[in-house]
């Protein structure tokens, strides 16, 4: 399980950076999304994966008595997903507006004029 996650993280980071280096604005956006997902899985992996042990205290006990899955990484990932959802929604709208203005998907066509 860990090995698969490590490979997925590597692929997501690599693909994300590759996509960000392309000239197309849509690919830039996809790159950012992939990177964000890679970071989320990284947190999940580094929070130690414990299978089948939910962090729920059993009836009658007041503390954990055995191993349990750490809930904190999942809370972090959930927060990060919500944030990246909002930010990416904004980024999509921004790219759409820019596309409508300059009528091109190529980042090289972005050229802030000297005169404003």
């Amino acid at each position: 399980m860990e090995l698969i996650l490590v490979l997925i993280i590597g692929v997501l980071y690599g693909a994300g950076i590759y996509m960000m280096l392309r000239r197309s604005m849509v690919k830039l956006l996809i790159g950012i999304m992939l990177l964000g997902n890679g970071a989320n899985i990284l947190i999940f992996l580094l929070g130690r994966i414990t299978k089948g042990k939910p962090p729920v205290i059993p009836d009658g006990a007041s503390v954990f008595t055995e191993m349990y899955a750490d809930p904190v990484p999942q809370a972090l990932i959930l927060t990060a997903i919500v944030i990246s959802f909002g930010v990416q929604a904004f980024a999509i709208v921004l790219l759409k507006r820019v596309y409508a203005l300059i009528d091109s998907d190529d980042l090289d066509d972005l050229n802030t004029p000297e005169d404003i």
Partner: protein
Amino acid sequence: MMDNTIVAPIVEHLFTAILLLFFWKKVKTQRIISVLGNLMVLNTSSQLFMKVWNNGIHTMQAGNWQAPFGITLVADVFSSTMVFLTSIVGLAIAVFSVVGIGKPRTQYGYFPLFHFLLMGLNGAFLTGDIFNLYVWFEVIIISSFVLITLGGRKPQLEGAIKYVTLNLLASVIFLTAIGILYGLTGTLNMADLSLKVALVQNRGLVNITSFLFFVGFGIKSAVFPLYFWLPSSYHTPPSAIAASFGGLLTKVGVYALLRVYTLIFVPDEFTRNMLITVAVLTLITGAFGALIKDDIRRMFSYLIVCHIGFMIAGLGMYTKASLIGAVFYLFHDIIVKTNMFLVSGIIYKIKGTVHLDKLGGLYDEYPKLSLVMALVLFSLVGVPPLSGFWPKLYLFNAAFDISSYVLVAAIILASFITLFVIARMWGEVFWKDQPETGPGRVMQFDKISIYKQFLLTAPVIFLTFISLYIGFGAANIISLSERIVGEMLDVTPYIQAVLGKQ
């Protein structure tokens, strides 16, 4: 000391922003509420500063979850000073925005977003939890994304793409660093991290994590070679927005760097050398960039980059004197950079352009206003005894003490080029005659009412007085910086305040 009122500077901005949302199209009401809200926060944050100054570090455990399990808010002298300065700058920008931000932008939510931005800044300064810091950074950048695109003109949107992309990348790198740090230590509380990072055996991974933090915060605070987004986006929004960005947004990156590198990671020899190298290159590239620009706001953008170098240099040298210099420069920089962009806003209102070629004759037409602007510009350059001079003196001495002569040369060169750039600007804008091929659309500054003139100039004068105080009352600021650096170098009181007596 437990004190739940330290959350007030965050909550007051939140409520002001929500209240503003109820007056969506009512421009006048929004302006009044925003200024009043900022006054209220200024009052609260000055009280917070006095409390922390007199009684030491205050903490708040959110939801009464004891540290290190819950989110802790910490107000030490450094963070409460930053909150106080943010409130001063926030008030000045809010007053300037009453006239400086036009009706259409106000109707599309300028003021609520401005308050959300300030809320994020206060949160970032007050938090004692590294993941919470990430969340506040996201609050800051999402507000700034909307502010930078507000109005939707072509250059704004084009600048925004660069700004948004690089900031999102910085956030991902920051998040990665947090993930690795959590994997290494199993905690997110900064005081707890400070104890646990020191115990980690795998020093290589700790160093890599600290570099990831440096890259993440470095993009946000615009250091070499990560600054390219700044000069290509900061000149596009209206001056009031550029002022809050230039004065506060890059500085929160510097604040985070200072915090992380003193509390969590103590930089080793290699990291210090890297920080000094980065600082030298930032100083030089920023200064040369400012040299070749003909647009005042682009020039100021490069000066922001250049002067970030001073603070990074202070952190890199990591001696008591150099950190005092860095902290002092940070305080000076917040006030003076905001003021600079407000000045460029007034010049734009008077002349309808910010191009050096098309400007001129300002001293002839507005001698009194020019005098105020001269004080701002000289503070920026650091003419003694104005505010920029003292921190540079500290940094200069510290660089001599560790015999880092390249850094000494870079500090002198950057100061000299700043002087040259500002002198050139003074000559072109104020002394030169107004060129014949004048600008097309001139807003008649004389013709607008005295009341509006007052609202535009009052914030500049207010911030100039603060700058003058920082310069002439330097002894007070130095003793403040000394106390902050004392807390930075000896983190035991901070850890005890957060985790309880041990």
